[in-house]
């Protein structure tokens, strides 16, 4: 397996989380932020147990994570299709199912190419993409602050903390990839996890704190609050810049799906060593198939349960590393 650095590992996973957050459906509040942060803390603790346990995954765990990668990839496509009303992709909305298929097909083509180059190059590219995305998002969202109404932050919560933690888990589609790729990280695994979860918490807080005062007042009217916040951010009086958000959004979508495809393809290779040639294509076909099956359903609870199961299965399904075993 190719080795990647902790920053590359962080960037790969963070992109998926940012994309999930951008596609976040339904109203959000300060409670959502606390819920997501609490969920992140729980995930961190569970992930640290896995890091201590170390080692590669057992066969049955690999099967679970393969299914999880296909499901998460499908959920990412569904999130992308659901934002069609907010993010304009030419020909997509006007062509119905063929439009969706075209978007998925084009993304699949880029994902196929990216996964053929290997995790090392995708991880390197992900660092550049993550930095560009964070920069663009910060410009987009900071300019939104000019339209912010700070009293919106303290609007009443609709769900309890447990519901918000569940939402936080549901938006964490990268946990399966985390368990699979952690073994390929160079150096201290726990430091890599700390870097990832710290970056995730910081990025989510920054985005939510910006979105809440901007969109809080019209939360009832909007389906995708983060995209709406980006659309409301207009630093110039005479022109709109929200189309630029589409560039960031597309880049995040491609790298998120690529990560799931690469995870699935890698596990396919581990489970069926003879099946090497078409594994990426098979996984992407399965991902698009899964997307069509779950299309139109949010499945937030299922996604949250799957994420929690991934965190539980990762340490249980890990082969004990040589260091632990001998110690």
């Amino acid at each position: 397996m190719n080795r990647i650095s902790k920053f590359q590992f962080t960037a790969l996973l963070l992109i998926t989380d940012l994309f999930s957050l951008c596609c976040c459906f339904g109203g959000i509040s300060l409670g959502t932020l606390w819920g997501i942060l609490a969920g992140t803390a729980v995930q961190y603790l569970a992930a640290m147990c896995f890091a201590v346990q170390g080692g590669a995954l057992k066969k049955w765990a690999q099967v679970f994570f393969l299914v999880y990668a296909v499901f998460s990839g499908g959920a990412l496509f569904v999130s992308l299709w659901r934002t069609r009303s907010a993010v304009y992709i030419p020909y997509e909305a006007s062509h119905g199912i063929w439009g969706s298929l075209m978007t998925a097909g084009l993304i699949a083509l880029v994902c196929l190419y990216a996964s053929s180059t290997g995790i090392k190059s995708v991880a390197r590219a992900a660092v550049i993409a993550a930095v560009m995305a964070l920069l663009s998002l910060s410009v987009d969202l900071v300019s939104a602050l000019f339209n912010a109404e700070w009293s919106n932050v303290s609007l009443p919560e609709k769900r309890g903390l447990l519901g918000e933690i569940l939402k936080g888990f549901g938006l964490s589609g990268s946990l399966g990839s985390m368990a699979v790729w952690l073994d390929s990280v160079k150096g201290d695994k726990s430091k890599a996890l700390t870097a990832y979860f710290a970056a995730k918490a910081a990025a989510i807080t920054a985005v939510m704190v910006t979105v809440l005062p901007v969109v809080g007042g019209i939360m009832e009217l909007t389906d995708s609050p983060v995209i709406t916040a980006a659309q409301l951010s207009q630093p110039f009086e005479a022109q709109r810049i929200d189309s630029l958000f589409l560039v960031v959004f597309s880049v995040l979508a491609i790298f998120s799906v690529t990560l799931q495809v690469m995870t699935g393809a890698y596990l396919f290779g581990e489970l069926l060593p003879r099946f090497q040639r078409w594994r990426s294509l098979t996984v992407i076909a399965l991902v698009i198939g899964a997307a069509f099956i779950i299309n139109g359903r949010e499945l937030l609870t299922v996604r949250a349960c799957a994420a929690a199961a991934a965190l539980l299965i990762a340490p249980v399904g890990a082969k004990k590393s040589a260091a632990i075993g001998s110690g």
Partner: protein
Amino acid sequence: MEKGGLLPVLDSSIQKIRSVSGGSSDVLINRFVTGGIHCALLCCEGMVSASVITELIFEPITDIPQQKDSHGLFHYINEELLLSTDRPEVGDYDTLFQLMNSGFAVLLAEGMTTGLAFGVQGYNTRGVQEPLGEGNIMGAHEGFTETVRTNMSQIRRRIKSPELVMELSKKGDKSSTDICLCYMKDRVPKALMERIRRSLDRVELEAVLSTGYLRPFVENGSFELFDSTGTTERPDVLCSKLIEGRVALLVDGVPYAIVIPRLFCESFQTLDDYAYKPYYATFIRWLKYGAFLIAVLLPSFYVAIVMYHPELLNSTLFMLLVDSEKKAPLSIVTEAFFVLIMYEVIREAGVRLPKPVGGAVSIISGLIIGDAAVNSGLVSTPLLTMTALSVLGGLVVPELNPQVTVLRFAFLISGGALGLFGISLLACAVLVNICATEDYGFPYMAPLSPFRKSGMGDTAVRSGIKKLQSRGFTVEEYHE
């Protein structure tokens, strides 16, 4: 080529040489008797200097006193006369022809199965001139020439360290081209040198006529948009690369050197950067980064915004564009495609045509076609401005011209078909391709990704020379 040893009978040997060379007119065979032994001096017309061969070979050789036999004659020449500094021994016809065709004079004697060769090269070569492709204001004005040994001397003049190693070898079954592998032995790991030598061992070409013949052998075989090896025609630039622990390959007959490995950020660095104050050098460097992005993306962004995302434009600009585009009979993508193709045709014509006609091309293209296209309404003025800016941006980074040209078209098509979404898709694929480019374990995108903080002092900015001096950089820092 004949592999057997030299025949001892001089007449037979000469007959064989004539037969192998097919009676070629430029093979000169001068027979004479010296020291009582029948001899022949062979050389290739035009490859040796007539005055040198007369003064240094013929005059001393014809004064040799009577010798007992041919062995005595060769012993006398080797021990008593200093005819030339470069005197390899010839044992077979293969070597004989190789040396003769490289400007050596070969002495054969009756009864000897070996010959003596003397380096008396005197062919006409182009002198050291200012390089045409790599302009420099504050640096040296010397460029490489077509002669590999002149190029080696230019490097040696700049790096007098004994650590600088130059390994000469021959490639090409028919051309027997001299190639020279240059490196600093204290800076390049032995394992890397071994890998490069192994790559070069795979060369089985009949002729090596340019650097392009060898580059595929020292580059990664996978599909890469950008070159993971570079070229330079400046000895001073090559010396700076060698000192950074890179390996260079000089090819006889080509005034360019191949540099291994090459990084993306190097395309934006020139020797002039180190002659200016750091703040100005940093400004120039960012100007080049911006120019590269403009060169690749500006036409596609223009087309995508005008066609699919007009809300990105302010009302004044939008009205201006609507006003000019509504007069154009073609769609914006076709228009942009047409202008860019026209530019490429004109550029290619300008490069290939003889110089006196080249001037006419610029008049026809600039004045007649350009002016007429706008006046007739075939092309809108804003689009022409965008295309011109993009082309101008590409000229700032001439090294990346092939990539910029192709990517500009690819982005134009994706932007025209799918707007900003299409541009994003292609940008991701290109980004992954650049990040996958790697040669001998050196990632092309280093020090950006994989990130190396130490490399930022000469990438994001241009730090002061004192700071760079303390860094003690070698490219090995980027090895993965």
